[in-house]
């Protein structure tokens, strides 16, 4: 919303400066977004006189001027080379000294030499000062203009519209009343920045009966259009509107069109009262306000053709739809310079109906913007009367009687002003009398402690709204903080849930393992989602910002892989990336879970003199998955199973699970097809951990189990077995451990011997696995015989479980 200072002063009697007004507006909740004050950019320009202008010795079209100028208050004689045809001896004009920023050219003026003659300043045209597009010549002022005075001051006195500051404010959706200059003035007056001038509307008596009558369809009278008024004014002279009106409209960025149209725009911005004018000679029969059947065509005033969606409110005459109600009129009945009989419309449209229609038609107009926020319903007919008076004044003519249907939908709402509650909610001492004064100044009518809401404030719907009005006029800037006592006295208690802690621990563990944390978008493209079991319609966005971000991610890995591909494109080939965040199983609220995903690409270390560099492999991913699981409290002995989802390498991936169903984590190589699709150059291994699936401890205790230390000598024995190549190490280890659960403290695999050499030594399809078994006696030292007995049992168990034999 834009307006000028002089426009504001039409409604507000004030001595306040632009800056004071701007500060108050922002504080009142009408946030100033910009002030364009011509006075600021023109302050260096002063009034000067050309003492003598003569021909430039070296240029036909240039003149050499001796100028009586004032620079920083000092009278000086300055030589200026000037190309303007009207530069002549005795001219009183506008001078810019060296150093001035010339707004029209965007250049800072420098001393110059033009064709061999010094030029130390400029005689200015209107365009150079951005006052108009006029560049025919330099400005000529009357001979009695005060030499040395600031040009802006002269303008302010003689042509104030040229230096009228333009203020632009942001209007929050609750304040339709501030979409008119008068509403803004009312707020400022309530704040005490001036006095709101009275605004009286005198009805204009009709001289004849309007030949055009209006009728609202009964169905709409209940809802969409409760009140429609209009009247014919015959014998008007349309044409350009007066300069002051054109200046106003131009200042706020509107194009003057014709007096009739400019009047409607003026009312829109002055009083938040949108109007429409039909050329009455183009209207066939009467006007009917009704819901569109759907499909009717209309070329609107923006010269585009629209097809009416079913139910949109329209105004029709005998030839069909002529106006999109409350949004935009139609070209066929629009006013032109030739219009002599005009039908003026002032109606009230339901905000929701207008909002829906505006969205369906995708039309953004000043009328829609205002009606969907709420126009004062009590001002429909007064608005018509006031506009009639302005038409008569600017265009002449003779008004008909008012034709109307329906009635103003004004409801008298009143809410209790509880002055104590205001103080309690805001936490600021605002005297009760001050509170009442504020509401009255805003147009509320107080009966006892009941505040009746003015018709132009549709947003005020309860007591809380009264509090807001009182608080903002009193100024929240004055609010002083008051300590909020702790809810519980004493040392602050922990507040994180076990899952929230778990997420943080998982994150810092992954970072400690050398991974860099990423935050990638929750939505990805359909193809990438599909590679990870997602990409269905349930997780699709209706209005994605691009096809790259169309589906909620089913997993964190595709986002990390895309990040890896981007980094590879930048030349970073060894990567360790992780993310902790939501993955989505469906499109309903709650169909999401937290995942920790880690991705290793390339080599585990850079090249170095120690030979540390080696490609990452699944045992890196497995160790990291296990480390994260251990950190968040997963039990040490989980199962390792195959059967990971199909974005993993089928032979090189595993699931860490508790029982057959509860998968805590997956690790492995990513499927080459997935890497190719996402443009990642391998090797790439990854893990995903599902922290919510790790059982939470039932009760929190801090006591550790007692430490059992044994002084008896432990014994370690190594065994190497020859087994079939497809025997899994864990089967063998578990079999060995089962040989004597009391005596065997642990079993560790320390060697795997496979490949050509192994087959050559041990036979086709064979490999060797070697384990260390640690025996920890608890009652007496082991004898060689005891050890032999356990060893035999281990060999037997392993043979039974794996078919393996001790390697000779």
């Amino acid at each position: 919303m834009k307006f000028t200072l002089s426009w504001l002063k039409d409604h507000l009697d004030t001595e306040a400066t632009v800056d004071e007004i701007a500060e108050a507006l922002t504080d009142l909740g009408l946030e100033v977004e910009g002030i364009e004050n011509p006075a600021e950019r023109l302050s260096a320009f002063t009034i000067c006189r050309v003492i003598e202008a003569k021909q430039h010795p070296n240029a036909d079209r240039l003149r050499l001027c001796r100028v009586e100028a004032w620079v920083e208050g000092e009278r000086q004689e300055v030589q200026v080379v000037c190309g303007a045809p009207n530069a002549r001896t005795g001219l009183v004009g506008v001078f810019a000294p060296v150093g001035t920023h010339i707004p029209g050219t965007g250049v800072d003026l420098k001393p110059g030499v033009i064709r061999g003659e010094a030029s130390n300043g400029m005689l200015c045209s209107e365009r150079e000062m951005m006052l108009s597009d006029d560049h025919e010549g330099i400005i000529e002022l009357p001979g009695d203009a005060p030499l040395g005075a600031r040009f802006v001051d002269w303008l302010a006195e003689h042509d104030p519209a040229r230096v009228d500051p333009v203020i632009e404010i942001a209007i929050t959706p609750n304040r339709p009343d501030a979409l008119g200059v008068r509403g803004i003035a009312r707020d400022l007056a309530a704040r005490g920045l001036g006095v709101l001038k009275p605004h009286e509307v005198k009805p204009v008596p009709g001289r004849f009966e309007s030949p055009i009558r209006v009728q609202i369809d009964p169905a709409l009278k209940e809802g969409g259009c409760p009140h429609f008024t209009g009247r014919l004014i015959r014998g008007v002279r349309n044409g350009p509107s007066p300069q002051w009106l054109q200046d106003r409209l131009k200042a706020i960025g509107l194009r003057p069109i014709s007096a009739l149209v400019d009047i409607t725009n003026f009312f829109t911005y002055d009083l938040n009262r949108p109007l429409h004018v039909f050329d009455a000679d183009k209207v066939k029969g009467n006007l009917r306000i009704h819901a569109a059947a759907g499909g009717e065509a209309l070329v609107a005033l923006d010269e585009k053709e629209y097809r009416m969606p079913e139910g949109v409110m329209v105004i029709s005459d005998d030839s069909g739809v002529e106006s999109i109600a409350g949004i935009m009129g139609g070209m066929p009945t629009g006013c032109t310079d030739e219009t002599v009989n005009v039908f003026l419309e002032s109606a009230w449209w339901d905000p929701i109906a207008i909002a829906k229609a505006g969205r369906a038609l995708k039309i953004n107009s000043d009328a829609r913007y205002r009606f969907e926020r709420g126009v004062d319903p009590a001002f429909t007919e007064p608005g018509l009367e006031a506009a009639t008076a302005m038409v008569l004044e600017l265009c002449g003519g003779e008004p008909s009687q008012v034709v109307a249907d329906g009635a103003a939908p004004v409801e008298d709402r009143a809410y209790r002003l509880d002055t104590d509650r205001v103080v309690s909610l805001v936490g600021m001492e605002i005297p009760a009398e001050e509170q009442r004064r504020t509401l009255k100044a805003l147009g509320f009518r107080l009966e006892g402690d009941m505040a009746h809401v003015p018709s132009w404030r549709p947003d005020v719907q309860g007591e809380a709204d009264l509090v807001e009005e009182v608080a903002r006029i009193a100024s929240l800037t004055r609010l002083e903080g008051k300590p909020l006592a702790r809810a519980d006295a004493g040392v602050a208690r922990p507040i994180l849930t076990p899952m929230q802690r778990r997420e943080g621990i998982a994150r810092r563990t992954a970072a400690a393992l050398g991974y860099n944390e990423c935050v990638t978008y929750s939505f990805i493209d359909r193809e990438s989602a599909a590679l990870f079991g997602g990409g269905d319609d349930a997780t699709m966005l209706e209005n994605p910002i691009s096809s790259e971000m169309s589906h909620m991610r089913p997993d964190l890995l595709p986002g990390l892989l895309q990040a890896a591909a981007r980094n590879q494109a930048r030349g970073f080939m060894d990567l360790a990336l992780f993310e902790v965040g939501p993955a989505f199983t469906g499109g309903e609220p709650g169909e999401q879970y937290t995942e920790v995903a880690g991705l290793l690409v390339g080599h585990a270390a850079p090249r170095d003199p120690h030979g540390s560099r080696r490609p990452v492999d699944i045992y890196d991913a497995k160790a990291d998955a296990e480390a994260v699981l251990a950190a968040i409290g997963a039990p040490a002995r989980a199962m390792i199973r195959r059967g990971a989802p199909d974005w993993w390498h089928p032979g090189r991936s595993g699931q860490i699970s508790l029982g057959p169903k509860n998968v805590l984590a997956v690790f492995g190589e990513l499927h080459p097809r997935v890497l190719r699709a996402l443009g990642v150059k391998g090797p790439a291994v990854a893990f995903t951990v599902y922290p919510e699936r790790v059982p939470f401890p039932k009760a929190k205790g801090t006591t550790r189990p007692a430490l059992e230390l044994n002084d008896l000598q432990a014994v370690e024995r190594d065994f190497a077995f020859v087994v079939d190549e497809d025997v899994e190490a864990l089967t063998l280890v578990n079999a060995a451990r089962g040989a004597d659960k009391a005596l065997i403290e642990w079993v560790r695999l320390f060697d795997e011997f496979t490949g050509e050499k192994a087959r050559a030594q041990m036979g086709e399809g064979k490999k060797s696995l070697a384990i260390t078994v640690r025996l920890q006696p608890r009652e007496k030292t082991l004898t060689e015989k005891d050890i032999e007995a356990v060893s035999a049992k281990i060999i037997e168990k392993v043979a039974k479980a794996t078919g393996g034999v001790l390697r000779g």
Partner: protein
Amino acid sequence: MDDLRQKYLSAIAGAADEAALEEIRVAALGKKGEISLKMRELGRMSPEERKVMGPKLNALKDEINSALAARRAALADAALEERLAAEWLDVTLPGRPRPQGTVHPVSQVTEEIIAIFADMGFAVAEGPQVESDWYNFDALNIPPHHPARQEFDTFYMYRAEGDERPPHVLRTHTSPVQIRAMEAHGAPIRVIAPGRVYRSDYDQTHTPMFHQVEGLAIDRDISMANLKWVLEEFCRAFFEVDHVELRFRASHFPFTEPSAEVDLRCSWKGGQLKVGEGDDWMEILGSGMVHPKVLKAAGVDPGQWQGFAFGLGIDRLAMLKYGIPDLRAFFDSDLRWLRHYGFAALDVPTLHGGLSR
């Protein structure tokens, strides 16, 4: 006797190696060594003579033995020194590589925020990111077709043909968590709700996903003045300065009344933000007293309870505090960016140790 002592001690001192020492030992103390022979002669001496010579010879023997041992140790040390000197390694070679992981600034700053509010008794609440339009809008006093709804640039979820429910949305703010938290816990309540939010906007300064933290405090007599104090304390702690100044400006949010935009006094010099000084005001958050309709929607009686809510941009706070220039880079996962702006795994922000290093 003294000659003998002098002879052997100087021979020991001059011995170059273990073999020479052994030769000296044999010559002096071996079976036929000079001193051994002299000791054998003791038997032939008179008791008086023996009484004098015996101790003398024994002392000499002990002294030579000690000298031999000392010299032997010295030679061994010298030999070790020589060997170690040959075992030279280039200590300027790099150590074995250890990978350096990092924590993303959004995570770090979220933890900082949690640490501060936890001290003021706020718990952490969470809610779904795909949200029903009721929680995201209606319950927050943003009715359908209200112009305020259009200002959110909402992402809608697809609705299958025949499913006539209003489409779900990607939550446009963390405010729906207010409703869910009050439904779950009632009043009094103090929570913050950090998390991802989504708006259909992508340019220099906007990304379609970003992070907010919601704050909610409801009790019998919480006022806007309390809100101001809480935010002042938060900003002071978060920006790690001794003093901050906030300015409340009236504004409008459908879910609070009165509503205020909050500006922070600061200065910008050479791209450096200084909080608590200067003449600039920077808008940092929106806030207000929870609207009675919102309390009612969440099942809390507005006649009994009142309180405040606020919403802060986490990414923006991170940018301000750590001088990170571009929001879009937060979600680009450029390794150089992650390493430069990321935090060490063990840099857990705490109030007692300080939020940042």
